[in-house]
């Protein structure tokens, strides 16, 4: 006797309709940001909802760019030309996210490999410390971090946001998961061939954990870009803001100019969404690997 497998047609139609409705619901905020950024004020404050801009205008962007200004960069004590502060915020954010990404990947690659393959004494203790720290709420230590940064004279400095991001041990755990699969014989062979530890790492280990590094890189980049609470506490002057923090500040002081805020929200989110879309395969892999309990 063969039992009918698969779901009934009715349920399948129902779930497709539900999925599409939910997808539209999840897409709507983004749609509203992008169209809102180009809507004239008459559309924004209309009595009836205006789903599509009656005409596409740049006015919101102009008011965003003249609202605040800042030197575009600051290197070795020299200020760059003055421009819209939003550009400076974007430059700061990219610098922060790239630095956090590079440092996290470099440190986690080495320590993840070490935890997975080196049989050093105290290894179990170090690993359980890392697991325990990962289960603790990160935001709870923000105030002590602030105290620490003021001792290190890093207050209102972009490095005060970068360093704690690198310290978070998720990356170590993720790379360890990837490095477990490196066959011990290959490492043994490299050692017998007389390769130094560093050489083994760069020529044998690194190529094998590359997918893990890719996943960690994109993961760190996006999380660092969006870590609003840390940025809020550490950064306090206009020219050091990140884009998230800048937009949040604009919201606090001009909470009625919706067009300007949507232009700001678009500027803060579209670049990171593009990065996500390009690398989303790596990203998905990172999420799944990082979750496997080891």
């Amino acid at each position, binding site marked *: 006797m063969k*039992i009918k497998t698969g*779901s009934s047609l009715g349920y399948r139609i129902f779930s497709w309709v539900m*999925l599409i409705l939910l*997808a539209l*619901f*999840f*897409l709507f*905020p*983004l749609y*509203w*940001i992008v169209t*809102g950024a180009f809507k004239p004020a008459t559309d924004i404050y209309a009595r009836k*909802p205006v789903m599509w801009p009656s005409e596409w205008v740049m006015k919101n962007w102009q008011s965003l760019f003249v609202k605040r200004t800042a030197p575009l960069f600051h290197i070795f004590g020299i200020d760059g030309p003055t421009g819209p502060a939003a550009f400076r915020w974007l430059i700061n954010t990219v610098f922060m996210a790239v630095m956090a990404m590079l440092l996290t990947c470099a440190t986690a690659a*080495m*320590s993840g490999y*070490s935890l997975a393959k*080196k*049989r*050093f*004494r105290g*290894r179990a203790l*170090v690993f359980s410390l*890392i697991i325990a*720290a990962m*289960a*603790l*709420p*990160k935001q*709870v*230590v923000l*105030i*002590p*971090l602030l105290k*620490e940064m003021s001792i290190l004279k890093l207050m209102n400095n972009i490095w005060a946001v970068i*360093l704690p991001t690198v*310290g978070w*041990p998720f990356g*170590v755990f993720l790379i360890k998961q990837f490095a477990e699969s490196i066959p011990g014989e290959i490492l043994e062979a490299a050692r017998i061939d007389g390769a130094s530890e560093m050489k083994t790492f760069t020529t044998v280990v690194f190529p094998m954990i590359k997918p893990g590094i890719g996943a960690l890189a994109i993961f760190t980049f996006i999380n660092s*870009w*969006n870590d*609003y*609470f840390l940025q809020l506490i550490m950064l306090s002057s206009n020219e050091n803001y990140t884009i*998230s923090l800048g*937009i*949040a500040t604009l*919201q606090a002081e001009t909470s009625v100019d919706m067009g300007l*805020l*949507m232009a*700001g*929200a678009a500027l803060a*989110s579209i670049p*990171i*969404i593009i990065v996500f*879309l390009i690398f*989303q395969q790596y990203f*998905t892999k990172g*999420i*799944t690997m990082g*979750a496997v*309990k080891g």
Partner: protein
Amino acid sequence: MNKKQGLSRALQRREDVAGYLFMAPSLIFFIGFVIIPMFICVGMSLTDATLHNAAPTRFVGLKNFITMWTDKTFLGALKNTFLIVVVSVPVTCLFSLWVASATYKMHNVPLSLFRVIFYLPVVTGSVAVTVVWKWIFDNYSGILNTVLKTSGIIQKNINWLGTPGLTIWCIILILLTTSVGQPIVLYISALGNVDQSLVEAAEVDGANNLQVFWRIKWPQIMPTTLYIIVITTINSFQCFALIQLLTQGGSDTNTVMYYIYYTAFKMTEQAGHFGYANAMGVILAIFIGILSAIQFKLGSEK
């Protein structure tokens, strides 16, 4: 024999040196920016430290921990935080499990598409998400009120973000859209890894879809469910950006995390009471630790 022992000892030392050298860069960051702050947090929670260091810091023992249980604002924040956790954790789990089971057998293109769409609010970032939702919910220019009014469902504008008892539900809704992305990715991968031969065997034995799900698939995705519950609990406990940007704790939406921030940086009369803020942080960490431990215990017994 002796020689062999000597060799393995030399080998062990080599492993120790190499192991710790590779660990060193990570450990410096980890100890410096995670472990030490944790100790500072516990230490400061026993003092009356303030932001400005105007008066000398004194050791006050457990005073902060006793004060908070008579602090009405803290108790209100605790109640709201638990409400958020109790609602959002099960809803997030069920919602993402349903989406995952409806999509995981799809072809690559629609599967990736749905996965990306449900992840978008996470990537968009809390500030951009909050700014747009604040407009959607806005009393006068928000699309929610204009749509409901033109379609005749409501007569008068509803003040979504300024009505105690209602606003917290709006915040939970936004929180849900930003927290289902990762669970969906995890469930899709877990359901794809369920042992297909068991499913087929059960179907041959006459099990219907629901039985196959509860008897075969559910136990196999249990570790994933557990992990999702833990991360969602931690995230819901830390709900901060939404509150800070939408209501500043008004309309009965204060949470513990927001109150910690408020105490440390905003409280006007005692400006920056770090000791008290850190004590609340310690309590929050203990709550999360206990809940995670219970969840893992329940999971390993199953």
